[in-house]
């Protein structure tokens, strides 16, 4: 069975952004998660970055009922 490579905080730091963005490879995720089990500081960093990302995600606007671009809409409808 393939075991995950042990990584230190410096290596973990490089993997955190992609991990929080859910863009890291399975192998990188597993290595990082293993490190997080024993490193409180990196664990806190990941929690913080996730929290910040969630706040930014919450800024997504809802323009479904906006009255913008009426002229453009009319132009397209008349095509």
């Amino acid at each position, binding site marked *: 069975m393939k075991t995950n490579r042990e990584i230190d905080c410096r290596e973990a730091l490089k993997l955190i952004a992609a991990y929080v963005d859910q863009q890291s490879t399975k192998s990188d995720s597993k290595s990082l998660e293993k490190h997080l089990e024993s490193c*409180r500081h990196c664990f806190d960093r990941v929690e913080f970055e996730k929290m*910040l990302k969630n706040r930014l995600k919450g*800024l997504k606007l809802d323009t479904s009922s*906006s009255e913008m671009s009426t002229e453009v809409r009319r132009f397209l409808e008349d095509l």
Partner: protein
Amino acid sequence: MEAPCTKYSPEERKQLKETILPLLGDLERVGLELCRSPQQTEELVAETVAKACEKFHTLRDHSKAKQWLLRILTNQFISKYRSKKTRREITYDEASEEPEQFSLFDELSQPVFWWGNPEQEVITKFVDNDFREAIGLLNEESRTIVIMCDVEGYSYDEIASIMDIPVGTVRSRLSRARSELQKKLYNHAIDMGWVSNRGVEQRTTADENE
């Protein structure tokens, strides 16, 4: 807007309408997130649609129409609003040495206080508008990539396709943009008195006790 694209046949115009019209809401939303002004957004969307009509014959894969339209929109946004200063900053992209990265976590966390997470407490003090203001202070390239990744939730591959840049460049630009954003959030936290310019207030106390 100007008269419909006369160079297209009735069938092509129908296709153009059926492709762009359902995506107009996405263009408006991303446009408003980038410009933060309904008037500027309307102008940006109108310019995007005009360009899309002009270049419609170049769109081969219609399943990628959304990415294609967003690419036109973000290109229009960046070229329209970016300042001379921004153009100079962009050259960093290919530079061999990355500028030092700023991390809000590094500034605020206090490993010595194992019972609390002061960095998380500071984040809860920000209201949505604080984040919007901070994003609005970023240059156009950085603002675009933060909005695409963190607000809109696109993957690195999708952003690479939208912005027409390699995935590695997405990663490096995103890292730099987040560093800039966190620095602006930190400055705001200092202005609001949530942290001292040496970190959270508790840090000062810890230092004094040493």
